[in-house]
């Protein structure tokens, strides 16, 4: 199989402050990939830079061997929940329908077949009973499932999810990871920005550990070793060390 993602010497800064430097890694297709790192390590920034949503200072990104602008319609992105206006007048089904837009092109409206497909995607995430609800009426986990359904509706090859498990219930989290694994088994690639280290081994095949630069990238069991973890999570580790040493 070809490379799903090829990042070469990527640098990103905000107003002159270097956020990411010397970022290079290659990920294969058909893998479920976690992006982990401490707070402020640039996980979301990495995802946005790979997607071309923020300017890069330098470096190349190829997705499925192509520049991003050639494959946009084949890339589904689920942004952090916090960025969305939950009072927007849109129903759950219409939110999922947005996923069909890239394939429609300019001036064309979604038709009945698109609505049926969107409904089918809602069924996959178990949210079909909420089709007519306004999106703000859902719980955090339900909202995240709807956004995954939207990504499914796009029939993408590569999925990018930014912190999908923040503030959601256990059932939704399990369902989302189950669907991502199914997608992986179909040969699709999924990247997930994630902050909870405890489940990394159950969830992901590959891991990208970030802290301003790439600390490690590759199969979970190879990358998730004490040296890399210590390097990435220095602050937290020193805190643990201090706690262990401290008399109880």
């Amino acid at each position: 199989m070809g490379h799903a993602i090829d990042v070469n010497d990527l640098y990103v800064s905000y107003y002159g402050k270097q956020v990411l430097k010397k970022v290079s890694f290659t990920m294969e297709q058909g893998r479920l990939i976690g992006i982990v790192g401490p707070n402020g390590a640039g996980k979301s920034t990495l995802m946005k830079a790979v997607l071309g949503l923020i300017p890069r200072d330098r470096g190349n990104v190829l997705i499925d061997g192509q520049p991003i602008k050639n494959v946009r319609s084949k890339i589904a992105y689920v942004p952090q929940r916090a960025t969305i206006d939950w009072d927007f007048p849109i129903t759950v089904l219409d939110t999922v329908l947005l996923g069909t837009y890239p394939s429609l092109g300019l001036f064309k409206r979604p038709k009945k077949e698109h609505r049926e497909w969107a409904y089918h995607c809602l069924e996959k995430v178990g949210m079909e009973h909420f089709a007519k609800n306004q999106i703000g009426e859902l719980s955090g986990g339900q909202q995240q499932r709807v956004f995954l359904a939207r990504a499914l509706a796009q029939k993408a090859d590569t999925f990018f999810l930014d912190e999908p498990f923040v503030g959601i219930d256990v059932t939704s989290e399990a369902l989302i990871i189950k669907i991502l694994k199914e997608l992986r088994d179909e040969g699709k690639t999924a990247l997930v920005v994630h902050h909870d280290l405890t489940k990394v081994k159950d969830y992901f095949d590959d891991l990208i550990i970030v802290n301003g630069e790439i600390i490690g990238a590759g199969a979970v069991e190879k990358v998730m070793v004490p040296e890399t973890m210590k390097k990435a999570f220095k602050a937290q580790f020193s805190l643990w060390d201090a706690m262990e040493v401290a008399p109880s």
Partner: protein
Amino acid sequence: MMSFIQDIQQYEFLQKALFTSVIVGIICGVLGSFIILRGMSLMGDAISHAVLPGVALSYMMGINYFYGAVTFGLMTAFGIGFITQNSRVKNDTSIGIVFSAFFAIGIILIGKANTSTDLTSILFGNVLSVRDSDMWMTLAVGVVVLIAVGLFYKELLVSTFDPTLAAAYGLPNKLIHYFLMVLLTLVTVASLQTVGIILVVAMLITPAATAYLLTNRLSIMITISAILGALSAVTGLYISFVYNWPSGAAIVLVTTSFFIVAFLFSPKHGIVWRQLRARKHKTALQ
């Protein structure tokens, strides 16, 4: 009421006034829905004020005020964007700075312009004096705005709802923003005669905000907003004619009345039902 209908049949100026204000009501309602959802209500106010120097210059140069107004409307939109992006000054502040400056220039220029142009009628509108050319221009603007919104409905929806997703789809958010600013300027110009510069913003945001309280779907919100805009225009015109009130003010107050009704009694979001539901819930727990 009957005499009003008879008068409409009888007087051409009244027909023109009615036709123009209904179109203004519809296009303001449609565009206003996007304006309020994008959090740009203040921007609507700014653009409408900032066209004043354009109107004055057009009078001086003897050209249709349409051109001057559109030029200054766009300059304002770009100026605001430029200041916001290139300094730490926040968006609402740069809006305030830019539009008040243009408005001030406009007031001075109007004074210098041909004395027959009446500042009051530009500021407050005078729908009963609509000329044929104004009416056709309003109609043309109306057609352009409705077609534009219709054609780009999908793109407007995505970029308004979730700009990050829109960017990931490869949609040009900035271009869409300035495209809306162009439409906003056109609508402002079209509304000058009906409600005037000062009150255009009410036509843009009040019917849209009312519709926002009544539905959970954008397409329906736009429809309700357009209907309320047109209805307010007709009712306001009637009141204005019968009681000899200024037309713009009358129309705006009708939109306000609709808003108050929706604010109190909207099935889902009205405060009356919300209070009742809350009370019922509390009693059930006791």
